[in-house]
């Protein structure tokens, strides 16, 4: 038996109810999220690469958004909280690896894929690896179907 007063019991029930409501809200949010299109943030200083990748992904069931440098990508990511980040490595200012490390810290659920025209040989990637940050790295050029397949595998 619980040894509580009626007013305490009232407060207790209220707390349980509000917890249940919060839980239900979270569940509902998760359901709508899983039913809606996955969001992907594409970052590349080569506008044409970013824009065409966005079109490809939008046609294939994603909701894609573009950024052309690391800083604006961070700002967009903070608002959008994307499911995926697809970023170039060599970019002016903040490079793709710095961006990926920042996003990994702020949004641990975002799945990160890097792509580069100089795959495997960039000092930046090997330095990040030495610091314990390993990211998927795709080599450009990548066929759109291969990219989609890769993203599906990460879902």
């Amino acid at each position, binding site marked *: 038996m619980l040894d509580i007063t009626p007013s305490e019991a009232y407060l207790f029930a209220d707390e349980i109810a509000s917890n249940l409501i919060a839980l239900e809200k979270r569940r509902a949010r998760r359901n709508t999220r899983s039913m809606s299109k996955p969001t992907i943030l594409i970052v590349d*200083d*080569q506008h*044409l*690469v970013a824009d*065409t*990748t966005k*079109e*490809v992904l939008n*046609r294939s069931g994603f909701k894609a958004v573009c950024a052309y440098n690391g800083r604006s990508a961070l700002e967009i990511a903070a608002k959008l909280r994307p499911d995926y980040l697809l970023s170039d490595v*060599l*970019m*002016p*200012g903040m*490079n793709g690896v710095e961006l990926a490390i920042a996003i990994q810290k702020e949004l641990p659920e975002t799945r990160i894929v890097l*792509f*580069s*025209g*100089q795959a495997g*040989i960039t*000092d930046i990637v090997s330095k990040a690896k030495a610091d314990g940050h390993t990211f998927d790295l795709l*080599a*450009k*050029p*990548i*066929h*759109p*179907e291969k990219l989609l397949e890769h993203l599906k595998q990460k879902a």
Partner: protein
Amino acid sequence: MQLKNMENGPDLTDRLQLLLAAIVESSDDSIISKDLNGIIMSWNAAAGRMFGYEAVEIIGQSILRLIPEELHHEEDMILAKLRAGQRIDHYETIRIRKNGERFDISVTISPLIDSGGNIIGASKVAREITERKLMEQKLILSEKLAATGRMAATIAHEINNPLDAVMNLMYLARTSKTLNSAKSYIQTAEQELERVSHIARQTLGYYRENGAHSPILLQDLVQDVLTVYQGKITAAGITVDCEFADHPAITASKGELVQVLSNIVANSIDAMSHGGVLRIQIERADSPAGVRIEIKDQGIGVRQEDIARVFDPFFTTKGQLGTGIGLWVVKQLVEKHGGEITLSSRTEPERSGTTVFIFLPLTSQAATESNNVN
């Protein structure tokens, strides 16, 4: 000369001379003396091993027998300097053995002065440097391969980006609902392919050539090198400021000059990871006739104590990332073209940066030789 443990006596001079002769005879370097007409007066054992002549067959002969015919003019220059009482230190040249084989030597020539102060001839101390020259050639070749590798990685980046866009565009065209939109994707793809072929033409073409000399306008070469590094330049936030005054074409090896310029530009880019201005100036030079090029960056600079060593082989300020032979090869190639290269640098914050000055003559000895061969 001072001697230890030798008692003074009437035969001291004789014993001293015997000792000196023994030193000369047992030296590993060739020691030869000649008079002011270039006639060989003495010949040690090492000279015999190096040139293949016994002392008896060469003493009294002209020194020209040891010099390849096309280098006979060197002897006039050497004799003129000796008559003026000057010394020639570590002069690197080619000599010829009795069997006709040519080899590289480094020779130091000093005037021989008698007790009356008259110049009576010269002593030549020569060391064979064929091995060292071979090592240097191998090193130049390996740096050439490394430079090619670095350039290939940069070119790969410049080519793979447009190719990535082309793949996307073709996919979008293929999956387009209307012919018009498909056409528009294909048009953009064509423009990107044009960019790829431009980069390939500007860069990969150099590796097909064999170092043959041809007329070159330096500003074109600079533009080509900048095309290759455009991606890196943009990525680092560097502004390029070119000032090309009217300058004549020079006769040189295009591939080698591309290597020279790309090594320097790559160094500047590495030094300016946080941006800045890369200023490249080219102008004509009149005496001697040629072209002067100045490449100035606002990078981190080279410390004063390191400046003297930047052209030394295996010296690097880039830690694990540098091979330390880039600038050394640049200097070898510039000098091979009869040119000169110097570097100045400062490291004070806000005012730091490095400037490389290169002079290249209109034509060089190397160009003339290469054209004769061709």
